[in-house]
């Protein structure tokens, strides 16, 4: 501010000076806004890094007053904590495998076959998929899974989760496959390749970055999903991490921040590691287009 006015006086050009001040102010405003937004996102991360190592964590993101690894040792004593992470991995990987295995051929078919109303079909599927895993469909979903005798089985959870994710998966993968030149398949067909051979040898390798995107996206979705496993799984030992984290209460009924923060850190590590690995190995390519 001060510098702005001094600059104005030196220039002896009031109109230019006013513009300069306005520019500086808008700059300042922008930085302030960026700092606030940045802090809004950074503070929870800081808390996640600090709190697990604090003997008496609070909800404030401050460096540990008394450093300890005790929180993690206490977590190990909990019978459900570590197994729940394994349960999460199992659910996530199984759902991912099912979604990729079904969405890839479906996307290929929808990308190559011209049927009337194809795009409408895709959009309707996409619309319903958000309903399937949404709160609104919980009662019918529960009843359906109950009738199928799949309550308290991973199969039930995986089927429901996959059902909700496949349409969006098809939608994203179809864009990748649309971008593949037709001559690739046609030349393979002239050489005598069957549709399945073309899918395996040419289409899937070509769409690999798209498959990586879908795989990571499915895993992250399942990893953070609370509602479906919470409703469909009854026994505590089979619950995934997203559900188990709600069990960490003290005898007094207070949220046990020591366990929650330590568990939160463990819970976030696999996703971060996976993201780094996939990004390194395959590279996320979004130019296939996420126009949804």
């Amino acid at each position, binding site marked *: 501010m001060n510098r702005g006015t001094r600059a104005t006086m030196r220039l002896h050009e009031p109109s230019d000076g006013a513009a300069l001040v306005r520019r500086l102010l808008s700059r300042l405003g922008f930085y302030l806004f960026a700092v606030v937004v940045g802090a809004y996102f950074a503070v929870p991360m800081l808390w996640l890094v600090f709190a697990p190592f604090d003997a008496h964590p609070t909800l404030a993101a401050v460096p540990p007053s008394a450093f300890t690894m005790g929180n993690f040792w206490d977590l190990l004593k909990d019978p459900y904590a570590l197994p729940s992470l394994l349960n999460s991995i199992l659910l996530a990987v199984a759902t991912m495998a099912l979604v990729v295995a079904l969405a890839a051929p479906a996307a290929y078919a929808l990308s190559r076959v011209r049927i009337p109303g194809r795009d409408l079909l895709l959009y309707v599927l996409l619309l319903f998929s958000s309903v399937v895993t949404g709160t609104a469909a919980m009662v019918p979903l529960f009843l359906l899974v109950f009738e199928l005798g799949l309550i308290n089985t991973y199969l039930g959870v995986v089927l429901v989760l996959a059902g909700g994710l496949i349409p969006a998966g098809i939608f994203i993968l179809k864009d990748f496959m649309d971008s593949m*030149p037709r*001559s690739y398949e*046609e*030349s393979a067909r*002239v050489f*005598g390749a069957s549709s399945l051979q073309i899918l395996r040898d040419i289409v899937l390798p070509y769409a690999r970055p798209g498959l990586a995107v879908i795989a990571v996206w499915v895993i992250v979705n399942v990893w953070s999903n609370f509602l479906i496993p919470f409703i469909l799984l009854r026994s505590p030992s089979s619950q995934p991490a997203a559900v188990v984290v709600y069990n960490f209460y003290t005898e007094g009924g207070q949220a046990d921040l020591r366990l929650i923060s330590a568990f939160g850190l463990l819970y976030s590590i696999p996703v971060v590691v996976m993201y780094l690995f996939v990004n390194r190995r395959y590279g996320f390519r979004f130019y296939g287009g996420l126009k949804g």
Partner: protein
Amino acid sequence: MADVEIRGLTKVFPGGVHALDGLNLHIEDGEFFALLGPSGCGKTTLLRTIAGLEASTSGQVFIGGRDVTRLPPSARDVGMVFQDYALYPHMTVADNIGYPLKIRRVAKAERRRTAESVGGSLQIQALLDRRPGQLSGGQQQRVALARVIAYRPRVFLFDEPLSNLDARMRLEARTFLKQLQRELGITTIYVTHDQAEALAMADRMAVMEKGHIRQLDTPTACFRRSANLFVAGFIGSTPMNLLPATVVDGSLEVAGCRLPIPDAARPHVTSAEKVILGARPEYMTLSVAEVPGALTGTVRILENLGVDTLVTVDVGELRVQATVPDESMPTPGDRVWLTPDPRHVLLYRQDDGEQVSARRQAEDMSAEAPPAVDRTAR
């Protein structure tokens, strides 16, 4: 090895576009056959129908005497090179070349050996472990050729394989491709929109327009004795002179000048008939001294073609072009006389654009009733 026969082939696309209209064609075993025409003439559709990538609306395709009309591409034993080469970006060059063999369940070591031997004969053996993205256009083109050769089909189908190369590379690849075809002796159908390419490479060619074959002959015949105005205008690096003429007293009046009627055309014209005279710039003689029975006018523009110069002359209202060797070069503004070589003058009817000697026929340009090219005109 096999011949290819097309009988009454028609392809109608949804929307009613006749891409192919009752085509008949016979391509000999071991022949290098070019399909030439402007874009949208149906040449690529014809090639894709022979490959089995498009289903014909009616008509039949025979390869080696066998009716393949209803067979899938894999059962036709044809190998195709696409305009964009269709090399798989995730496979190495060796894997690309070996892919047709992989489909035939040939063992990996054997595939590698084939890739090495075929790659060696095309001078790409050093590139076998690279990926297509790391190759130049010319190298990619050779990989595509190597792949189709490794497949050992009975017929090669080439869809404008040189159009993605720059001009210099295209000339080299042209020679290379023709030599390769001679060595392998495999029947080759080659689609192109570049008339120079077709003239240079083909044993025979079909000039196509709007789903019809307008002329089916050797490149020399198509060039020298273009059957109709379409072929006359399409073939030739420098456009043919097409001049409106009137038959007057046993000679042709063109822009106030008198030219003799070519002997071969004489019986087919009547007095006062209006015709189109066709004469290629290559078959025009330019003179600075007066010549009887010649077109006369003023030199307007000179264009250097390398060895020759293309001279544009204003003859009355018309523009006439002639190629002239360097030594007898006029200058713009000169009055000159142009004599078309009477052996290479063609006369076309004004109404249907066919040669005056051609039979009047009901739009049948097919191979079984070849357009009556004037064989005596030579």
